[in-house]
């Protein structure tokens, strides 16, 4: 093919930059392409996004990364879900586990039977039917399998990882496959006066680096996509009002839990992400409600264990670029948009952006049809995550706290309104085209946030009440037996991927 592009320039290292470099080096291996990554050691990486969702395993597998090596290198732990604490007020907590609840009967989704059981003498908790939840809460873990007949095929897992170490791990991977790294800060972005395409970037030492395709991984600033190309930004603060975060690392005082904790606070929420060697902590908050100092005081008072770093303050505006790809520039990571880490979607959105770029990989004609399709798909990803996040805030039960009262009374997007109405009406979960969150994810948060349907499916009445109770009890017992067979989370880490045995990877 003669009109092939030749040089790809990635501006910015960090998780997004090195994920992009690694993936491109995996698929562009013939020597036809030159991949260069520019980063400056003077510019720190944001370093959040340490919690992931199960899709990351797919990304690593595509790159041929050995999971044990990856976990050792990034000091990762297993993650089975996210526990939301205090989102309904008081000590209430619920989990969004990565897996199914029960299994469908007679073609009717399981949760309708569970809803019906709430009317009967024998009460069950929905979480009793989630193996992921039961493993998580009992601090146990075993790798799932693919046999659909096995109960161990009913859950998925992700990781808590050290994002900086992940970037280092991927840097080694990428450099081994020919990616060139240039140390330097981008000073100027040089546009072609006729086409408006990016011709080159000039570094602070006046080195000029030319490229055909530019990947903007410069973080919130969006050096290329926004500052140079000015694509515009959709501000979603009216739905997701948190716009600040403060993060700090602390030492581990206990064995790592196989789940992330999201603890509601007066002006936002606090995360706790247990790694093998430390704990990541942070407070995501709204600066209209509290000052940075107050936020830090709150976090500081709620971080057990010795703090290992100074507090790192971040500012952001929730939303996304109007265009993720413009001309010969694709934005990946924070430069494309920001959604708070409540559902650990940052790394997933990065990997989606990269994989979709490979699917839509351009030649030097940069067909507008490819760019439009990419933008449509990526914007849709952001939009779907947005709705899911808003649900957590909108259905909160924290009364008489200004921040939470405002969230509860805000006008929500029509797409979410329609979904909620349908679930509230009859427990039906609207099928979604999302590649990220599907039925069990929505169900976990609906029920967790006390969204109760007005009715359950009438077809559940085809099973007599006593028989239903028996079936539910059997499911519960099967899950209990499965949990009892599993080693602890810590034991699995030690046997599988302990960072203590980290080799020179």
């Amino acid at each position, binding site marked *: 093919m003669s009109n092939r592009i030749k040089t790809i320039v990635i501006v910015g290292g960090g998780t997004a930059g090195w994920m992009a470099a690694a993936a491109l080096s995996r698929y562009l291996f013939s020597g036809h392409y030159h991949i260069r990554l520019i980063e400056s050691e003077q510019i720190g990486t944001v370093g959040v996004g340490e919690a992931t969702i199960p899709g990351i395993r797919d990304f690593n597998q595509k790159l041929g990364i050995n999971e044990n090596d990856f976990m050792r290198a990034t000091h990762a732990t297993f993650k089975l879900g996210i526990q939301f604490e205090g989102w309904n007020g008081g000590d209430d907590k619920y989990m969004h586990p990565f897996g199914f609840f029960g299994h469908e009967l007679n073609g009717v989704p399981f949760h309708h039977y569970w809803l019906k059981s709430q009317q009967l003498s024998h009460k069950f908790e929905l979480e009793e039917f989630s193996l992921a939840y039961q493993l998580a809460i009992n601090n146990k873990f075993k790798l799932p399998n693919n046999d659909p007949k096995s109960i161990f095929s009913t859950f998925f897992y992700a990781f808590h990882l050290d994002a900086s170490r992940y970037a280092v791990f991927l840097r080694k991977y990428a450099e081994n496959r020919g990616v060139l790294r240039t140390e330097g800060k981008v000073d100027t972005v040089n546009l072609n006066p006729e086409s408006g395409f990016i011709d080159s970037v000039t570094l602070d030492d006046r080195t000029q680096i030319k490229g055909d395709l530019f990947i903007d991984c410069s973080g919130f600033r969006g050096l290329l996509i926004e500052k140079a190309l000015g694509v515009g930004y959709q501000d979603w603060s009216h739905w997701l009002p948190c716009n600040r975060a403060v993060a700090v690392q602390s030492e581990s005082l206990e064995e790592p839990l196989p789940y992330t904790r999201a603890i509601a606070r007066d002006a936002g929420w606090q995360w706790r992400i247990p790694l093998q060697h430390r704990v990541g902590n942070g407070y995501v908050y709204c600066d209209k409600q509290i000052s940075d100092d107050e936020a830090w005081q709150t976090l500081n008072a709620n971080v057990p264990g010795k703090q290992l770093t100074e507090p790192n303050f971040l500012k952001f505006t929730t939303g996304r670029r109007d265009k993720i790809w413009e001309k010969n520039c694709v934005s990946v990571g924070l430069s494309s948009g920001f959604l708070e880490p409540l559902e650990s979607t940052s790394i997933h959105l990065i990997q989606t952006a990269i994989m979709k770029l490979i699917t839509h990989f351009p030649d030097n004609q940069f067909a507008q049809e490819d760019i439009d399709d990419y933008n449509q798909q990526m914007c849709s990803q952001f939009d779907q995550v947005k709705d899911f996040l808003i649900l957590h805030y909108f259905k909160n039960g924290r009364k008489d706290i200004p921040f939470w009262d405002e969230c509860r009374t805000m006008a929500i997007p029509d797409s979410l309104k329609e979904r909620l109405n349908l679930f509230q009406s009859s427990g039906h979960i609207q099928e979604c085209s999302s590649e990220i969150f599907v039925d069990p994810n929505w169900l976990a948060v609906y029920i967790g946030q006390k969204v109760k349907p*007005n009715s359950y*499916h009438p077809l559940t009445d085809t099973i007599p009440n006593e028989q239903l109770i028996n079936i539910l009890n059997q499911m519960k017992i099967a899950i209990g037996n499965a949990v009892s067979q599993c080693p602890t989370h810590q034991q699995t880490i030690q046997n599988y991927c302990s960072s203590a045995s980290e080799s020179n990877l």
Partner: protein
Amino acid sequence: MITSNKLYRLIVLGNTLEAWLAAAYIKRKMNHLVEITIVDNGQSNPIAQYINLGSTTHLFHKILGLTQNDMINFCEGKIHFGQSYYSIGDKSKSFFIPYSSSGFEKGFFHFHQLLSRINENFKNYNESYSINFALEKNNKVPSQSYRGPIPDYSFVVNSSRYHEKIKSIALSMGVQYIQSTNYQLKTDANGTINELTVDEEKIKNISHVINTLVNFDSQPNKKSSKASYRTVEIVNQESDYSDIALQWSLDEESIIKKQKLMGKQFIKGYHPIYLSMQQIEAIYSADNKTIAIIEDVISDTIEWSANKLNISLSNLETPPLVVCELEHFAASLADFIRLFTVEKNNTVNAKEFNRLVNQRQKSIDDLHHLILYQASSKLTPSTGVSSKIKKMIELYKTHGRFSLSPIEPVKAHYYFSVLIGNHLLPKSYHPLLDELDANQIKAEVKGLQNQIEIALQFTNNKGDLIPKR
């Protein structure tokens, strides 16, 4: 929470195939919870002589209790592995849509992109690389000793026999049947039908009404638009294609319109999809006077806007170039069951039902319009192509890419078959395909052709059952 645990009374209006299918399916799913009465008011939908059940309705028929044996022996069914399309204006643009996709995908790359990379002419990629096409062409079905994956297939059955079978199943399950032209429906203050009087007899507390009659007064609001299409009409024909052709019955209004358009009498209409290539050749090469091509047959594109779940399934019309009437109907019945609710005035579930049906209808219309769009411009209008399809075509034209939503009901290879079958080839292939070794791709493609040849050795003649897996 509203609890149910009660008996639902469903009224199905009409003595149509759809009526009996709906009654049998709902009864099977809801069992003792439902009491179903079919009211036959003497009207019935015109039913085609043969009906294609579609490749996605096997589970639907399993639920109904219909076996392959029933399909073949009782319903006079014939197995098909895809649909043949014959382009009237340009015979070279005839093509085949297999029910299973052809070739293989490799990472990010579609099969036709792989063929393009190795400079293979992929105009006939379905014909060369599809086990479905090979089976269809050779009139074979997989035998017990066949080891490959069973390709998707469909039954084309005698619709009268099929109707009869479904009716007997429904009656055996206890579906009530009343024949009467003297019936009356009564609505409550909310406009919900809650009472039916048939010859002085009253059925009260009706939960849902399923209307299978096209001209039922209380059918949901519909917005009709005309989608014109062309089909082959054989006038003054004496050929005997009736065993394979779908006889297309028309209502009075359409017949008058056709006569007006054509200026002469016609006898029967044949759906080109059901004609084999040889038979189409025979028609095409016949005296021109015996063939007329007509335009403008009314097809209502229905937009559902029912505000209650009292539905009219007969409006699930599909354009004739996409053979999926029964698939659409079965999927809509499944949606109906999924959204079945104890609340009679529940508008939320009705809205969701409408959304799902409309979404499916739209996709089917899109494929239909794509078929027309790609056919000869001399003969076929290109109006009606949605902006979604136009974007798809433009995207495909650059590098052969194609993007579909994960919940899109029409499969991607249907679109490819139409695009490629009509000579619409991409300008180039995916740039990253140059990273792959062409010789390796060639070897894999050759391997696929060998596999198809070997697979054909383990087949039986059509008419036999497909082995269960």
